[in-house]
């Protein structure tokens, strides 16, 4: 704090990665508009220029669930289009280099959870995102792999998109269409309510696509790295991490839940320059 014209003001210092928020807004609006336009197209009044693709056509997870059917019988699972395969490939490419940036920067469901989480942060201050007991939390974090295996299995044996009936992402952008299963609406509602207490609960505990991309954290090219020599060990990076990763006791973040949001870095919360960075090389 410094005095300016006799008033005490806080000097500006970036506390968040603002451009990420901008990118999140962009993709949220893009997907929302496409979803609305898809509905309009069915009544013959689509907005020209804007895509009227179905939500499944612009969801990369569809590209993952259809792989078995594609390999075994040469066709895509119903409702899935080749665009989903393209998006899955691009998201995987990004993840191999930069980790699950799709989750942290693009996924509109993640974005909505973050928006709701702002309310929780205001209500609960530092308690926010720390309600789940550590032991339980550690176990629950592997649930998304179980869900991934289940989704892949049921899709493979049925050749249909069974997950649609449980998918909160589909429910979020189709709740007006009458095509959404009550289970999906229930899961979306639960996710939003939980987001008041826990940051990104769906991503942490249930998202099967996050499970796929999360695996790239183990070998990605660019990682979050902490220079222990300059670290003040104030724990800011760990407190800020939406996925509750203890960045302050790691030199390289290889946690399967990292979403590459960069909120822990020296560009955002870390008060020491070049101490927590996103890099492909080593740190001095």
């Amino acid at each position, binding site marked *: 704090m410094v005095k300016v014209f006799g008033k005490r003001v806080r000097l500006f210092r970036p506390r968040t990665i603002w*451009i990420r928020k901008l990118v999140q807004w962009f993709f949220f609006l893009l997907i929302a508009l496409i979803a609305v336009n898809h509905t309009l197209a069915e009544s013959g009044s689509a907005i020209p220029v804007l895509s009227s693709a179905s939500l499944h056509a612009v969801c990369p997870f569809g590209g993952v669930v259809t792989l078995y059917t594609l390999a075994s019988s040469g066709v895509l699972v119903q409702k899935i*289009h080749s665009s989903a395969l393209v998006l899955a490939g*691009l998201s995987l490419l990004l993840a191999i280099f930069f980790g699950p940036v799709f989750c942290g920067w*693009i996924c509109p469901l993640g974005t909505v959870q973050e928006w709701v989480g702002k309310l929780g942060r205001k209500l609960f201050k530092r308690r926010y995102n720390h309600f789940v007991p550590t032991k339980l939390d550690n176990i629950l974090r592997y649930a998304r792999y179980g869900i991934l295996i289940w989704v892949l299995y049921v899709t493979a044996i049925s050749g249909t998109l069974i997950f649609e009936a449980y998918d909160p992402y589909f429910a979020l952008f189709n709740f007006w269409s009458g095509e959404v299963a009550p289970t999906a609406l229930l899961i979306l509602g639960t996710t939003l309510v939980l987001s008041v207490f826990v940051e990104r609960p769906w991503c942490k505990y249930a998202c099967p696509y996050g499970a796929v991309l999360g695996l790239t954290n183990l070998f990605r090219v660019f990682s979050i790295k902490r220079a222990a020599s300059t670290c003040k060990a104030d724990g800011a990076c760990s407190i800020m991490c939406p996925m509750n990763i203890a960045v302050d006791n790691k030199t390289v973040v290889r946690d399967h839940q990292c979403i*590459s949001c*960069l909120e822990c870095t020296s560009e955002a919360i870390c008060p020491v320059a070049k101490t927590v960075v996103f890099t492909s090389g080593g740190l001095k």
Partner: protein
Amino acid sequence: MTLTSKPLAAILFIVMFGGISVSSALGWWQTESAKVPAAFTEGEFAGQANPADIRGSYTFGDIANSFDVAPDVLARAFQITSDDPASFAVKDLESLYLDSGYEIGTNSIRLFVAFYAGLPFDTTGQEIYLLKPAADILLADATLTPEQTAYLQAHTVEVAPADVEAAPAPSEESAPETESAPPAPDPTTSSTEEYLVKGKTTFGELLQWGVPQDVIEQMIEAPMPDLAMTVKDHATATGLDFETLKTQLQAEVDKIKK
């Protein structure tokens, strides 16, 4: 190399939208269905298209592309009168029979295609109805199990579509009369308009009109193409003169229909 948020955001946009642009240029970016049903994944029919996966958005032409059922057969089975049965959308069927008291829709098409093509279809617990013309075609042309025949007999209804004229009667070759079938009107009394070879006439229609397959193959100098393919498309694709081919085919049709 160290990255900050702005270059990362730029990379993200370049990769996502650049990738979409490149895939579009390569023809990989398809956001609409290719209208190909999922295939059976196991058993005797593994790899073959599954009739249970026929969707409302499919046209009779799409169905003909995946199953050995010509659009004209489907049109006759469901009493659709159209110059271009291949373009008739399955989802439009239900609205034609809304007032009939029976649900004649996508499921009826699935059942018909499955029985006609000899593919498995689970009817357990389902009440799926077929029209009499469809049942007649199946009894005449398909190989049905006793269970399938019994199901068919229990689920055949005689209703007329709303605002649609009765479909042209089947020719003797494609659907010979059976005991249960109503007498078919004499094809020779039909308007000759119905047997005009046009650009959108399909090979399936030619067969339905009674033109022998070997005659067609002789004229197009090639094995019989997909039955849903139009004569004009085939002529364009193979470099044949459509007008000449049309005249030859029309002569054959006229010979049969006289």
